[in-house]
């Protein structure tokens, strides 16, 4: 141990021994913080203490010195536990760096391109509850005016869920077509998922394919949160429901598909259950609350609506989202 530290300790202790003021203790405690930072073990503190007392008051009975020796011995295991803390903090920091790097790789690996189509305004926001996102959005589009979107949610969160996302992306890529029908898309991905992951993991997915020329949305769902249709003309919300098992349950699963024609100002709101199953202190946030939020901003661009809904739900939940949050809006313009 550095001589300087021993001297400082002795001086601080000496001041305390003279008057025992709160000021002395405050100085002492600030010093103890510095000792921890410099990795001075508790047994070393006791030893320093003993030496300082010896130098300040040499003539104490032997039992005092023996008693300090015993304390030093008692503190050795405490000192080891503290060193372990240092190494745990270091490990945790390394792991954090690795997780950040992994999240970056994941993002690049699974990135998707927002379709740019005449007459279609798209808004999108996907915010993970933890480091890794267990929700996934993938767009496919082409020159003929098709814009397909897969909105998927792996049951489970964090890293294990995030790993499954690649199946959706590469499955969609293997179809290599923007106008594939939702029931076919869901069947293909279902078979990949069924083959690739074990029985404890499931994925829910909504697939919507928008034909911009006909302003027609065809959609299907694999056990996913229903989408919402907002009709500007009627100022009304309805659910877009389609029957279908979760992906990965059965290779033979069959998926329904339905069609709806959009008019100017209509919105199709696709999402994961992280949007609808938010909670505040009084319980679940009602679906109607979300309708109200959307209605309030219906005339704005799709991205502004999406951002507004997120901001308001975040506020209601004190920024404590329990699940990944993903919201996509197709607005016919």
């Amino acid at each position, binding site marked *: 141990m550095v001589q300087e530290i021993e001297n400082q300790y002795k001086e601080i202790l000496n001041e305390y021994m003279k008057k025992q003021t*709160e000021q002395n*203790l*405050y100085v002492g405690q600030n010093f103890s*913080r510095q000792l*921890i930072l410099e990795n001075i073990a508790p047994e070393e503190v006791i030893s320093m203490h003993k030496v300082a007392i010896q130098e300040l008051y040499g003539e104490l009975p032997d039992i005092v010195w023996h008693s300090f020796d015993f304390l030093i011995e008692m503190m050795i295991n405490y000192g080891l536990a503290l060193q372990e803390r240092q190494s745990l903090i270091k490990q945790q920091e390394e792991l954090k760096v690795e997780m950040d790097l992994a999240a970056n790789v994941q993002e690049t690996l699974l990135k998707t391109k927002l379709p740019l189509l005449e007459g279609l305004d798209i808004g999108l926001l996907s915010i993970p509850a933890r480091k890794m996102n267990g929700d996934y959005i993938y767009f496919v589009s082409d020159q003929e005016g098709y814009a397909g979107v897969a909105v998927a949610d792996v049951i489970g969160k964090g890293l294990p869920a995030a790993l499954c996302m690649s199946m959706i992306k590469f499955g969609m890529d293997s179809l290599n077509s923007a106008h594939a029908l939702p029931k076919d898309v869901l069947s293909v991905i279902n078979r990949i998922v069924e083959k690739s992951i074990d029985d404890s993991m499931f994925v829910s997915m909504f697939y919507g394919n928008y034909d911009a020329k006909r302003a027609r949305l065809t959609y299907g769902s694999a056990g996913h949160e229903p989408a919402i249709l907002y009709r500007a003309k009627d100022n009304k919300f309805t659910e877009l429901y389609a029957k279908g098992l979760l992906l990965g349950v059965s290779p033979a699963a069959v998926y329904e598909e339905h069609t709806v024609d959009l008019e100017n100002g209509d919105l199709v709101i696709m999402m994961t259950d992280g949007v609808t199953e938010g909670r505040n202190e009084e319980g679940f946030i009602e679906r109607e609350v979300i309708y109200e939020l959307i209605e309030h901003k219906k005339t704005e661009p799709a991205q502004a609506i999406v951002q507004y809904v997120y901001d308001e739900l975040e506020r209601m939940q004190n920024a404590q989202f329990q699940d990944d949050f993903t919201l996509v809006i197709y607005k016919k313009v």
Partner: protein
Amino acid sequence: MNGESSVEILTEWDIVAARQLGRNVAKELGFGTVDQARITTAISELARNIYLYAGKGRIEIQQLTQNGLKGILIIAADNGPGIPDIRQVMEDGFTTSGGLGAGLPGVKRLMDDFKIETSIGEGTDIRATKWLR
């Protein structure tokens, strides 16, 4: 609730005054040496946070009686900038490894109960309680 007193935090010396106040109340309530030291450390941390991050504020010490239990309540209030990311300041290793001392996780550990309310640009209000057993 009875017995109440407070210290304005403006300079580093006020931290010591707040500690002294807290220690006196804790001793009077019958807390042992170790608990006195812990309560004082918690006050010290909270007062130091005010001094460092809000510039000024107030430490208030209250004696509590509830269901026959006696306790001490520390209130640390300021009109400072507020805490942008509570999750981060409550994280282990975040403050201590940076040398900022026990930090808020430390205060939480030193006391039985810990509540924080903060709002950007408006300030922070922290309440920490320890019960006498």
